[in-house]
């Protein structure tokens, strides 16, 4: 849903919008403080290791204010902005899954007695209560994609549910996009639709620096009320929408999603997979940075005395040889079959499994691929390849 005044005619731009409010730039710390007061651990974008990471933050000063990034296939550089925008960048190598599906999760601890019998402690630790600051539309859609994996199947991941239900989401509408973005094609952004507690749109016009803020939930609404914000004018809303429209125009990549699933199902033997196999290094970067990739493995460990054993769930990647290991060898023995699995999963089989595509158009896999392999280009190439063979379907 676009941020839109509900009760007023659009031309009446001088009047207040009942739906949205204005958060002054210098009131942002108050918003973050209110969340901390409510017991939330803040998580948001912050500079780390030469990139804009997503990590625990203490307050506004940890945000990458005045920073942006340049990114394209296989390339990422931080750059100073000429202004002091708070959210003037897009997405970096990390995503919110780091906090909802941590790279390592202890599943169980088993303790063995002298007789050899063991007991199992599922170790249901209290889950942290996170407030996610600055969640982009594609990223929120990615979280919703993972919800389908961990919450909506025959089994529910208990830890995920606790973390997810507790998480307070302060979303941000993108007002600029990267050359690697294709949320418009995937219909996942840049406008937020649902699923946030609060949504901000950063407005910078001349000396003016404010946020248009709207609530998506009751707890979001309470927070706005507590901060005693001034109501937004129709002009504010229109200004915000114009800013978001810039991000639409800046989407640097496009994909044709029509018939994408069927195309890939017909293309298991397309020669393009051999081509991409020559470039793919099977490093797994694309799966690590992807906000929807959920595959994991479990590692077992025991102490030297053999009294205590742990089972730890860790992120895994379908690009490794071990991933499809079965007695006798690996079922996907080459880069061709592994890249094909990954991309076909994202854009085709995912739809059958979960009702939506596994790609939200965030472009991370393009940027963080050391070979600059571009999923949008690979899909287009497969389409061209089929058209060349059959004259299209």
């Amino acid at each position, binding site marked *: 849903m676009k941020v839109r005044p509900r009760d007023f005619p659009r031309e009446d731009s001088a009047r207040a919008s009942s739906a949205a409010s204005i958060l002054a730039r210098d009131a942002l710390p108050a918003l973050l403080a209110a969340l901390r007061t409510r017991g939330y651990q803040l998580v948001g974008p912050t500079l780390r290791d030469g990139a804009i990471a997503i990590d625990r933050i203490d307050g506004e000063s940890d945000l990458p204010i005045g920073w942006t990034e340049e990114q394209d296939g296989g390339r990422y550089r931080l750059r100073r902005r000429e202004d002091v925008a708070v959210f003037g960048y897009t997405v970096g190598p990390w995503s919110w899954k780091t906090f909802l599906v941590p790279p390592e999760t202890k599943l169980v601890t088993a303790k063995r007695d002298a007789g050899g019998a063991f007991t199992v402690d599922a170790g249901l630790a209290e889950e942290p209560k996170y407030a996610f600051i600055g969640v982009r539309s594609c990223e929120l859609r990615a979280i919703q994609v993972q919800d389908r994996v961990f919450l909506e199947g025959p089994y529910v991941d208990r830890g995920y549910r606790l973390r997810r239900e507790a998480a307070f989401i302060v979303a941000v509408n993108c007002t600029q996009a990267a050359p690697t973005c294709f949320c418009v094609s995937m219909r996942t952004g840049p406008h937020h639709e649902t699923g946030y507690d609060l949504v901000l749109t950063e407005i910078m016009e001349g000396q003016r620096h404010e946020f248009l803020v709207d609530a998506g939930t009751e707890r979001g609404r309470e927070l706005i009320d507590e901060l005693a914000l001034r109501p937004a004018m129709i002009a504010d809303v229109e200004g915000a929408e114009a800013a978001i429209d810039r991000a639409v125009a800046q989407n640097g990549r496009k994909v044709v999603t029509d018939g994408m699933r069927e195309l890939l199902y017909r293309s298991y033997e397309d020669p393009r997979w051999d081509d991409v196999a020559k470039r793919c290094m099977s490093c797994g970067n694309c799966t690590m940075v992807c906000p929807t990739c959920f595959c994991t493995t479990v590692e077992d460990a025991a102490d030297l005395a053999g009294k205590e054993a742990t089972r730890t769930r860790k992120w895994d990647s379908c690009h490794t040889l071990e991933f499809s*290991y079965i*007695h*006798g060898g690996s079922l996907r023995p080459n880069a061709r079959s592994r890249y094909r699995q990954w991309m076909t999963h994202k854009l085709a089989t995912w739809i059958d499994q979960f009702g939506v595509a596994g790609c939200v158009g965030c472009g991370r896999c393009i940027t963080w691929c050391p070979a600059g392999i571009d999923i949008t280009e690979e899909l287009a190439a497969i389409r061209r390849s089929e058209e060349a063979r059959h004259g299209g379907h």
Partner: protein
Amino acid sequence: MEGIEKLLKEHPFFEGIDAADLATIAGCGANVRFEVGEFICREGEEANCFYAIRAGRVALELSAGNGDIVIQTLDQNDIFGWSWLIPPYRWAFDARAVEVVRAVRFDCSCLRAKCDGDPRMGYDFMKRFAKVIVDRLEAMRLQILDMYGKPTVGV
């Protein structure tokens, strides 16, 4: 002779065969019986016949130094022996009756002459043998895969 023809009609190898051809082929056939353990043919011997098994089990064996290995068994409704088709007409294995075997044995010098004389019949006959050979080859492929063998790696 009519007796042989009747027996052949019941054998799936001859299913759908031209009646005149069947009569011709039956003219080369004779009823035979092998007792348990009896060799029906031996590797390297001249192959001048083939058998349509009516009852019983035949083991095809190869001597492997440390004992004889059964590589395939053939039962009722199977055909065995195609060495007569291809020079130098020598059996490529031992065949031994595992049970009492009743079969129709075809004299192939007689049959070869008839096939050469009637290429249409010869071609039809050859197609029937090709199916037997292909089936046997496919079976052998699956056997040599050792698909139930212990894997070298696993969890």
